[in-house]
């Protein structure tokens, strides 16, 4: 299969992404006319002196404080999860790895459950108690998994995956116990685990942004070394890659990103698994192309899913369900099409 050239793939996908962002901003259940939506956008984004006469305050609020932040947060979350997926699939040399493979999501969910049960009203650094606890839960989980898998100075990938599964299962069980013991919070915990961008605004974006940026930049520094990792860990060492440091770096960056994202949005599955995979099928396995394109496509994918989540029906559909519903079958289709090649890319 001819792989697409990086030179024009990135600008092209940025252009597509911007168009989709625009379409998604003017789409929604609230009946705001196309013209009004454009006027509000021009006024809010470009600060043009557009006359907003005759547009209800509600419409302005919806575009400015609901849709725009949802689109931006959707992009941020999707992009972050997709880049994490790239990183994890790289160090694990396993195309089925996703950002949640080591139990970040279970840790975050447990933290969030505790937050929901205790129902913190206080806010730390502009984040709700649930968010802070989810973040802490995610981070502590990875720390635990990492330390369990450590053999001397090394962290073998297989041990890491296994202890990830074990820890993840244990934490899920712990969360179930919390849910059963606090039935009145059960629904809230369930809603949280289903993931949603509903009611999230600029504040949440500001919460996530620094962590995501830090993590994504860090992951972008590992592109060449991740390429080499894909050809085997021993080979990577022989080609001068400090494999253990690389693992730590990717693990740290991905955890920072995932923890920040899901502590705000709840668990949104599939983006981190499917997007890198699909992009790899199109562009080939080189991370220097794969990572930026996954970033753009991951963001775009989640924006589309979230727009569907808030616009398909008069009520909200949890976005995690939409991502799985779209991502799953598409993924199966791609796999069956690529099966003949036998390669993962």
């Amino acid at each position, binding site marked *: 299969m001819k792989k697409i050239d990086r030179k024009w793939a990135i600008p092209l996908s940025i252009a597509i992404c911007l168009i989709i962002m625009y379409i998604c901003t003017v789409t929604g259940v*609230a009946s705001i006319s196309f013209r009004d939506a454009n006027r509000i956008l021009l006024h809010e984004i470009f600060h043009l002196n557009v006359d907003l006469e005759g547009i209800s305050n509600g419409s302005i*609020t919806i575009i400015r404080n609901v849709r725009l932040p949802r689109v931006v947060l959707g992009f941020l979350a999707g992009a972050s999860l997709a880049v994490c997926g790239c990183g994890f699939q790289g160090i694990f040399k396993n195309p089925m790895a996703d950002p949640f493979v080591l139990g970040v999501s279970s840790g975050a969910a447990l933290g969030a459950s505790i937050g929901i049960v205790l129902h913190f009203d206080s806010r730390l650094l502009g984040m709700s108690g649930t968010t802070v606890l989810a973040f802490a839960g995610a981070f502590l989980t990875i720390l635990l998994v990492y330390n369990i898998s450590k053999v001397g100075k090394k962290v073998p990938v297989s041990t890491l995956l296994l202890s990830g599964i074990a820890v993840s299962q244990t934490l899920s069980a712990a969360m179930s116990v919390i849910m059963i013991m606090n039935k*009145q919070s059960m629904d809230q915990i369930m809603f949280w685990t289903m993931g949603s961008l509903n009611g999230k605004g600029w504040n949440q974006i500001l919460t996530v942004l620094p962590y995501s940026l830090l993590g994504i930049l860090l992951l972008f520094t590992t592109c060449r070394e991740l390429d080499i990792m894909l050809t085997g860990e021993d080979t990577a060492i022989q080609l001068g890659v400090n494999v253990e440091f690389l693992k730590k770096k990717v693990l740290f960056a991905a955890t920072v990103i995932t923890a920040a994202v899901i502590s705000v949005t709840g668990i949104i599955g599939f983006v981190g698994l499917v997007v890198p995979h699909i992009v790899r099928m199109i562009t080939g396995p080189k991370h220097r192309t794969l990572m930026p394109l996954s970033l753009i496509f991951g963001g775009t994918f989640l924006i589309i899913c979230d727009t569907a989540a808030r616009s398909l029906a008069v009520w909200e559909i949890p976005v995690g369900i939409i991502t799985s519903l779209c991502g799953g079958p598409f993924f199966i289709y791609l796999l069956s099409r690529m099966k003949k090649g036998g390669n993962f890319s």
Partner: protein
Amino acid sequence: MGKKWIALLMSAVLVLSTVGLSGCGGNSQEKDVKDIPTTAAKKEDMDKTQTEDTQSSVEDTEYPLTITDGLGDEITFEKEPERVISLAPANTEILFALGAGDRIKGRTDYCSYPEEASEVESIGTYSEPNTELIISMEPDVVFATDYVDDSIREQIESTGAKVVVYTSKNVYVVLDLIIQMGLILNLNENAAELVDSMNTELEEIEQIVASNQEEKSVFVDLGSFYSVGPGALLYDMLDQIGVTNITADTETAYPQLSVESIIEKNPDVYISLYSSPDELKQTAGLDELDCIKNNNIIFFEALSQEADIIQRPSPRVVEGIRLLAEKIYPDLF
């Protein structure tokens, strides 16, 4: 992953059907749910059914008695049940109100009202009761809600106990089931009195509200913008006092609304059963909403008595309606 999410979707449906802790009608089983046939749910028919019920209720129940429960199952009682287990807080309340408190041998962890209920032994939670414990109590009848698992129900039934399942989608179903429980327990007189007083109270509230000129719209937030829609008890209670609910067009008992549509519908009053007013004020988009800005927020803290009475299909449901009316139209009272 895929399976996980399908499972989540399914559990979501399940959870939605259990929102509110009090055994409101479950949308997952909506097809099977038939209104209790003794009376009709419509308000217009109330007077007619009322007289019928009153007439029949003065007399003693004749056994064997066959009734149809909320799931549409026919259940026959050979004799007056002596030992009763309640699998829902609302059922416990009704039993105590009927004067059958001494017959209750088991209740759920959440049966917090009346106070005497706490003296009864608990058999666990309403959806996952301890089957062994229930069977060991040798009940004649178990009053359950529709989220008790079928397999648990069958296990209990296999010991000879009768399991009566109730689903309460509106206020009149609650009145009907009180009458039916009275019939089953041969407490017809108490049931009739209770329903009479509830009806009187309802009429009183109706009269007060009738004078209302300004129709208000509300949004009920159960948490994470999940709300009540047509088919939910709380939705019907608000309907009783002439309040428009912005979820009217969702046709779903427990829909989740997007912030966007809440803003667009611009409700006059925001009823929150989970998030505190402070949290709501900090939620992006909502802060611009008139009702939030003007502090038209009614906040019922989870597990408080107030939250219970507006959610439980119990005799206190009329108190709940009055509470809602008072909070939404304070000027009328």
